[in-house]
């Protein structure tokens, strides 16, 4: 049952996959909250998660800084700070590229003043990737974090 649902979600992208899953009775309507990127959060590869948030063609930018520890002894709590000098920021997404589900969070922003910080779980040593959409374009930057003890279980 779960495997079927995963395949349905994988098979097509984003909203259409959800509609199909709902129509097929695989997902209860209550599970489909407004504004939650099911395809993005259930993606198991960073590339699939990036595609699901419309960031597959993001260009590397020096105007984004991802601050995180070089070595995280505890992968369950890794502080991450995103700062950017890009103007007109519309959204920021954070991925831990080797997590079972790489997409950690996605934020639509208005009047953003260049700084966002949170704490994430990391399953293993990986790049933490920030995606910043600004002025209609998509930019990205990464920071590698070495993880001593993973914090995702499984």
């Amino acid at each position: 049952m779960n495997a079927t649902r995963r395949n349905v979600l994988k098979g097509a992208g984003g909203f259409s996959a959800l509609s199909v899953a709902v129509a097929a009775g695989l997902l209860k309507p209550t599970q489909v909250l407004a504004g939650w990127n099911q395809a993005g959060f259930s993606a198991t590869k960073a590339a699939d998660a990036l595609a699901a948030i419309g960031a597959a063609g993001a260009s590397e930018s020096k105007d984004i800084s991802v601050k995180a520890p070089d070595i995280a002894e505890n992968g369950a709590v890794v502080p991450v700070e995103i700062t950017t000098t890009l103007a007109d920021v519309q959204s920021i997404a954070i991925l831990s590229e080797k997590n079972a589900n790489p997409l950690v969070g996605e934020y639509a922003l208005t009047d953003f003043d260049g700084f966002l910080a949170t704490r994430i779980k990391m399953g293993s040593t990986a790049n933490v990737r920030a995606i910043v959409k600004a002025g209609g374009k998509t930019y990205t930057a990464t920071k590698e974090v070495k993880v001593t003890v993973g914090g995702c279980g499984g």
Partner: protein
Amino acid sequence: MAIPMKLRAGNGEIKVLINHPSENGLRKDKSGALIPAHFIKNISVAVNGKAVLDGQWGGGVSKDPYLSFKVKGMKSGDKVVVNAEDNTGDKATVEAAAS
């Protein structure tokens, strides 16, 4: 059930701390059984009624989720409201005036 949540706003920055297990549904307990997913899915922040952040979270956010960010033009006395909802439908709302 209401989710405990703290909010602090001032000097152009909004800080939110939520008391929540943030289980991703992949961890096992001591008996080897999967611990069900239980995490915050949506968080939104408004200043004086204007949405400044509309966030979506997965199970990769750490336990007791923390979020801070800077907002242009926030002044002392501005009304900041934060709403959050987890995957079981539990909700949290807090309100504070910016210092």
